[in-house]
């Protein structure tokens, strides 16, 4: 790679600083450029916007902390932020261990056949996001698959109401949506773990929980981190799922952010402010959780 860069910079050799030469050029790689244009810059714009004010259909360029102050004061936002973080956290708490167990089975138990099963799991990602959410309505609904089967079997007399239009439904649906995504990084990071490692550990006396905690998890940690990020951040940010299956408990902070970007009565600066507060909170929780995992897996 350095050779390529050297060749490319033949003309500007004189400019290249000695220590961070290749680092400076990395900024220009396509990925970094894409990131800057489609993410960093818009985020920056939105951040600046969050300090402005809205009046009718116009925006007033200003610098005021009014929006942030409003968020700090209004209990509605507090409730929603808390609910969002909790639901995201619970979903991740379910998704990641499931994805871990699934990856283990695919990688070590099924080995070669596991790759085919993985393709099948990923296939579900192709069937469209909304379609999959509506599929859960069919499964969990009052006259849905689950209730009908249970009633037919005589286990219950009337449909279980908590199955749909509830936080339960939100978490289950989100789990279904995010599990394939979470399996991918964990599965690929398990490539680092060879059978020899596991056999030596077993030979030395480690089993089950201890094996998972001291060997499997630490060695698959990069994948687990990514999977946790996917699960938590995507679950916390999802507002379509809760609005379709979450019922009256279903509103998360994403809904109110979206509401602020309508035409009539919209308040883009406020929307931006809520978005950034959410982002900050979610990132804090995420990093704290990563710390916790680290702590649990070392002595």
């Amino acid at each position, binding site marked *: 790679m350095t050779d390529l860069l050297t060749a490319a910079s033949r003309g500007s050799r004189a400019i290249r600083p000695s220590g961070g030469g290749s680092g400076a050029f990395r900024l220009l790689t396509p990925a970094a450029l894409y990131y800057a244009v489609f993410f960093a810059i818009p985020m920056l714009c939105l951040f600046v916007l969050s300090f402005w004010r809205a009046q009718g259909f116009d925006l007033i360029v200003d610098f005021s902390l009014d929006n942030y102050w409003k968020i700090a004061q209004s209990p509605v936002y507090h409730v929603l932020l808390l609910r969002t973080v909790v639901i995201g956290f619970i979903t991740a708490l379910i998704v990641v261990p499931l994805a871990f167990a699934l990856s283990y089975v695919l990688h070590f138990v099924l080995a070669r056949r596991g790759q085919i099963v993985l393709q099948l799991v990923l296939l579900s990602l192709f069937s469209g996001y909304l379609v999959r959410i509506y599929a859960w*309505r069919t499964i969990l609904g009052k006259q849905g698959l689950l209730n009908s089967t249970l009633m037919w079997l005589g286990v219950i007399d009337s449909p279980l109401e908590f199955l749909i*239009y509830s936080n339960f439904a939100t978490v289950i649906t989100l789990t279904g949506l995010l599990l394939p995504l979470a399996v991918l990084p964990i599965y690929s990071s398990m490539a680092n773990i060879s059978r020899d490692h596991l056999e030596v550990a077993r030979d030395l006396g480690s089993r089950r929980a201890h094996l998972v905690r001291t060997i499997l998890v630490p060695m698959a940690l990069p994948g687990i981190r990514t999977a946790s990020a996917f699960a938590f951040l995507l679950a916390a940010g999802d507002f379509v799922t809760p*609005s*379709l299956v979450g019922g*009256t408990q279903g*509103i998360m902070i994403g809904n109110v952010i979206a509401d602020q970007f309508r*035409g*009539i*009565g*919209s308040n883009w600066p406020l929307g931006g402010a809520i978005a950034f507060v959410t982002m900050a909170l979610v990132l804090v929780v995420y990093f704290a959780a990563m710390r916790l995992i680290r702590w649990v897996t070392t002595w």
Partner: protein
Amino acid sequence: MNESVRSLLDSKFHQKFSRRRFLQGAAGLATLTVIGAPSRGEAAALGGQLNYFGWDGENGANVAKDFLAKNNIQMQSSFQVSGDEALTRFNTGGRGTLDILTPNKDFQRTILQAGTELFQPLDMARIPNAADLFPAFKQAPWLIKDGKTYGVPLIWGDEPCVYNPKKWDGVPAKYTDFADPKYKGEIVFMDDPFGNTWLFAKSIGVADPSRLTAAQLQQTMEAMLKVKPNIVTIGASFADMADVMVRGDASIGVCGWAYQTLIAKEKGVELKVASPADDGTYYWQDAYAIALDAPHADNAYAFIDFMSSAQSNAAIATELGSGCTNAKAFDLLDPVMQGLYPYDVVRKADGGILNTQIVFPPQQTEGDIVGTQAWIEAWQAFKAA
């Protein structure tokens, strides 16, 4: 002519609708195209592109198919998800690229009153078919500013409750009655901060439900909160709401649309519309408008004139399960369609209730009266509670 169109409409009504079509525009109704008399606007040079940004379905993909083909017009359609999205688009680079818009009456009224730039005044001489509009729509106050007309009404309807007749004989007399425990687990609301609030404000007795003080807004919210334990979920869209009822997860929908009964019918579920006897409901109307700095104004005029003809109007009203705005179109409607809406209202010249009823609050706070922001926040608090 009438007979063939009538039978076409007949066969069309008994065809299967699908939710997907509703969501994506009524594509697929291949048998229905209207071969109307050529519009007098054809004299001007037509052809090229025509940009539509409005409600899904009102772009007349089927109704205007032949017309567009004959005049060599390629229609580029994008669909809005809320009544005010056109303004957002206009202000964020859409200006100079938008031709046809479909504002509802309250939105259009608000924009015109605020003097916000969005619509251009129409040269009504280029829309001769507009002469056949019902009296209420001809000189509708919400379309006119400073003597100029800014919109041509297309369809209208109301916002009834939709219910499952197998479970209920009808709806209670007042919206606040929905708080009764017997409705527990049966109600689905529409995610609309303005409609719901208006209806409940009316229900608690406020004279002009679009103008509320902070205290009145609070009381309205409290009335709605009493109903909340009975609510199953809040539908993300009309189609979503219909879906919930079709599945049997709820049996009464508040703030709905007659079109939902047609969606349900095709799924084999019967739903009926009714409004609370004491409170009634509000009416809406959508119109065609042309954006300021529209790049293809000629095509736009021709299109609007064509769609305003009796045949076209009847066809699109039927397609969307709404009321027609052209008086002659009424005679072309199927009896079922004719009975869906209270056409007496629109036969009145002053627009009757369509005029006096305003559903949106003011944009800004006006003295005691709270504005749209307050309504949106109250609705969010309701949802979050």
